[in-house]
């Protein structure tokens, strides 16, 4: 730690000589010194960092608020640290990676300063990651309606139901496929609430585009729109001639496991939501939405179910 503090001090000196913002390496130096047990030296330097940041025009930025919070923690000023963290958390709500990184540093400092880990949840509400699965619109020959077109039009009842739940949960990030119907509705609803969407396509994008095109209406346009706005698009490995059910089964496992990994990475809270009338099927078919519900329940992931049959068109 002492050696690391020396390197950070050198980086700070270089930044000062160049007239650049030296608050970041200075922050590192203070933290390394603090963790090395040199508390008084760290506190004295923390005051200098605070003074420097507070004079800056951009002192209200997320990173500067985080820096100030960390320096206040080093000074054992928990209330003032909390005020800065609250501002930083509000500013980083759309960047859960940053939120997670800040939360991790705060956890280290808090453990050293007070040992009160309840403060962490107060300062940084865990980012909510929501994973979605649902039906595609009914084709013309389907006898029993499952997801009629009139239910899943833009601004229709399914979209409204999804938007309401997403807003209530404060979701910052979502994972779904991009098929017409439930998937696109979910992505649109999440983007409308300024959330980030990752699309994990079970088939090559060319095949997804064909499906959207075959569904008619405006599905192709809406698919392209969410492709443009998605934070990340990942095509799950797929053999060109694989049968659909097997690949969908595989995709359910991969998508859910990826969501758990991502949730761990951002130190968040994972929830699931489905738009499905088969969520409570006794023996759900692998690859279907009902089976996705079963996997979520087996993994103890809280799940909300919107049954399209209960929505009024």
């Amino acid at each position: 730690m002492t050696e690391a503090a020396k390197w950070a001090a050198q980086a700070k000196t270089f930044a000062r000589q160049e007239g650049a913002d030296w608050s970041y390496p200075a922050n590192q130096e203070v933290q390394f010194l603090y963790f090395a047990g040199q508390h008084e030296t760290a506190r004295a330097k923390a005051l200098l960092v605070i003074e420097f940041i507070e004079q800056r025009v951009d002192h209200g930025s997320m990173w500067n608020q985080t820096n100030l919070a960390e320096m206040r923690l080093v000074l054992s000023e928990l209330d003032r640290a909390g005020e800065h963290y609250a501002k930083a958390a509000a500013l980083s709500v759309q960047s859960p990676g940053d939120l997670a990184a800040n939360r991790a540093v705060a956890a280290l400092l808090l453990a050293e300063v007070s040992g009160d880990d309840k403060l962490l949840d107060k300062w940084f509400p865990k980012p909510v990651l929501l994973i979605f699965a649902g039906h595609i619109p009914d084709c013309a020959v389907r006898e029993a309606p499952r997801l009629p077109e009139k239910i899943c039009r833009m601004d229709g009842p399914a979209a409204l139901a999804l938007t309401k739940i997403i807003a209530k949960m404060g979701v910052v990030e979502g994972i779904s496929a991009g098929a017409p119907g439930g998937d696109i509705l979910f992505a649109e609803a999440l983007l409308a609430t300024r959330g980030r969407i990752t699309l994990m396509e079970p088939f090559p994008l060319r095949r997804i585009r064909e499906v959207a095109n075959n569904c008619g209406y405006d599905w192709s346009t809406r698919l392209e729109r969410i492709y443009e706005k998605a934070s990340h698009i990942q095509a799950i490995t797929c053999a060109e001639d694989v049968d659909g059910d097997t690949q969908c089964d595989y995709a359910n496992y991969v998508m859910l496991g990826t969501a758990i990994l991502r949730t761990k990475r951002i130190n968040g809270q994972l929830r699931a939501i489905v738009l499905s009338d088969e969520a409570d099927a006794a023996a759900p078919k692998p690859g279907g939405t009902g089976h996705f519900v079963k996997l979520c329940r087996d993994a103890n992931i809280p799940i909300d179910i919107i049954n399209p049959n209960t929505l009024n068109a």
Partner: protein
Amino acid sequence: MSDAIVIRSILFADVVGFSKMPDAAYPGFMGEFLANVDRVLSDSRHTALARNTWGDAIFAVFKTASEAAHAALALQSLVSSQVWSKRFGLASTEVSLQLRIGLHAGPLYEGFDPITKSLSFMGRHANLAARIEPIAEEGHVYVSGEFAAMATLANPDEFQFDYVGQRTLPKKSGVIPVFRLS
């Protein structure tokens, strides 16, 4: 090969240093090293459903990602826990044995291999696993995102997967995100 498609986890390993071994070392390699590998692949906690070996290559298929991950780590442990350079005449050659391991999971065709006369698994996902192994660092286990996801779904806290980055696979097999298993 039958028409049965099943989701399985695939392991490909390469014995680094194999081709530099003196001829006199091969009996020991087969009788000792491969015998130890067999013990790992036969362990009741992670028994391989199918296995094969040729030259410096080891191929195995497991029912679950968790079993494949445990077997891969056990193989790395096997190599690192023994001073192989002192065994079967390697000391004077400065050859040290290391393993490079790649793991992937996906739908495969299950069937009977008429050449090895044993159960085998084939398909695009097995090919992908074979492409991951050459990009792994010596002494490490690299896995696909799909594998990391399936192992995590089974037990979120059992393994650690560190993101290595987007890596180009050999033989024009594309670019995929790769993780290091520990």
